């Protein structure tokens, strides 16, 4: 480790420490001189802080310092009382998080019920979901995806870190097509974007 490298490490450490929000990796890369990889710097910081009271954590493609989760109960800091979400909102958020990108019609197929007005509103306002890419299928339906704030809120380093997602994948439950299609046709979309039929409204 050269003095130059350590200088960059200090700078990035300070930047991350100063900010309350996670900082995108590509933003941080701009502070790295020629020949210094931002990934190496972040790995090094991650190691330095592992096991300490404050950790460097990944949030999607962004990074932030956060207090270690195991200390939560003992920190007598003003805690923000989370707003209680309706069952429908929790369920809709789970569908978006685990099945993303997902259209509103698909959310309704999976939940078996029309999305009540205001359910998505609450999630947008909490900054947990945002519009994703439109599907290149007839009607070009819009999709919903989760945000980086969502990952940060639940302490997830990425979507692969969602609790239970591997089990869902393994049991084929991440298929977002109407149920009857899942029996007869292979799921070509895998867990990525799909060309599902958006004219649902039928039960399956």
């Amino acid at each position, binding site marked *: 480790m050269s003095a130059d490298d350590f200088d960059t490490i200090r700078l990035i450490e300070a*930047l991350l*420490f*100063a*900010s*309350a929000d996670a*900082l995108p990796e590509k*933003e941080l890369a*701009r502070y790295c001189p020629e020949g210094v990889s931002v990934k190496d710097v972040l790995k090094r910081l991650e190691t330095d802080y592992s096991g300490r009271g404050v950790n460097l954590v990944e949030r999607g493609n962004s990074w*932030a*310092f*956060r*207090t*270690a*989760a195991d200390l*939560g*109960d003992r*920190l007598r800091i003003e*805690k*923000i009382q*989370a707003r209680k979400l*309706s*069952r*429908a909102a*929790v*369920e809709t*958020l*789970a*569908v978006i*998080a*685990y099945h993303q990108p997902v259209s509103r019609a698909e959310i309704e197929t*999976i*939940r*078996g*019920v*029309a999305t009540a007005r205001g359910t998505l509103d609450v999630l*947008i*306002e909490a*900054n947990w979901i*945002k*519009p994703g890419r439109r599907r290149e299928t007839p009607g070009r339906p819009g999709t919903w995806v989760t945000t980086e704030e969502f990952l*940060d*809120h*639940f*302490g*997830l380093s990425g979507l692969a870190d*969602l*609790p*239970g*997602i591997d089990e*869902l994948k393994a*049991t084929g*439950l991440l*298929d977002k097509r109407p*149920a*009857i299609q*899942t*029996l*007869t046709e292979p799921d070509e979309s895998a867990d990525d974007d799909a060309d599902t039929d958006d004219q649902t409204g039928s*039960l*399956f």
Partner: protein
Amino acid sequence: MITESEIAAFEDPAGPEIDEDGQLLLDLEGYGGPIDVLLTLAREQKVDLTKISILALAEQYLAFIERARKLKLELAADYLVMASWLAFLKSRLLLPEPEDEGEPSAAEMADALAFQIRRLESIRQVGARLFAQPQIDRDFFRRGAPEPIQIDRKSVFSLGLFDLLAAYGQYLARQDQKLYTIEPFMLHSVETAIERLSQMIGRLPGWTLLSQFLPSYDPNKVESGEQRRLIGRSAVAAMFGATLELAKRGVVNIRQDGSFQPIYIRSSPSNNGPDRTGTA
């Protein structure tokens, strides 16, 4: 794995409940649609969700809907659609399968429904697990005293996507309201009828049918049949009002030979009032 208490903690206290007789409480407000009812019923079968008996489930669901009907509870269309679909599925499951390869068999349809139920169950579970995760500002914390450092952010304006969309939504809503202006309608007034009648009455000898004084219809002005009818009626009403007014002033006499008979008017021979007025 997820614990029962986590599921219980996640579930709204107002959610579906089972009473002592093992029957689903008919609190429809508590359910998130027919699949939710089926899921609750399936949990009651107390078996692995991969081994649900769809036939038993269909019967329980139909019994549930029947009870709701007896109690005259209002059921949303979704519930009734599911009921008729399940009744259909039940009859097909009980009958020998017809040899038609075109559409899904009853067994396949049952499997699809079981999949739908399991998928919703899986979402319930991961939803609970998600909210059992440590959460920011509660279990772990960000820097409490962020230092004001400019990280080459291009904008310092605080505006979220939500605000932008809400602004456009408000603009559109305002546009909608503007479409609700009511256009003034072309109707005849008593004033114009008096003017018209006064001008015409002197030029006509003897008794003349009231309808002769009605203004002629201008085909260039009016489009719909409904409008035409309204304008016609307003013309008759205005002309009749004008006739009464002019009769009162002693300008005209009115004659009607019986109820619902044609009404005649003439210029009053004297200004001493009408010599004969009919019933109006």
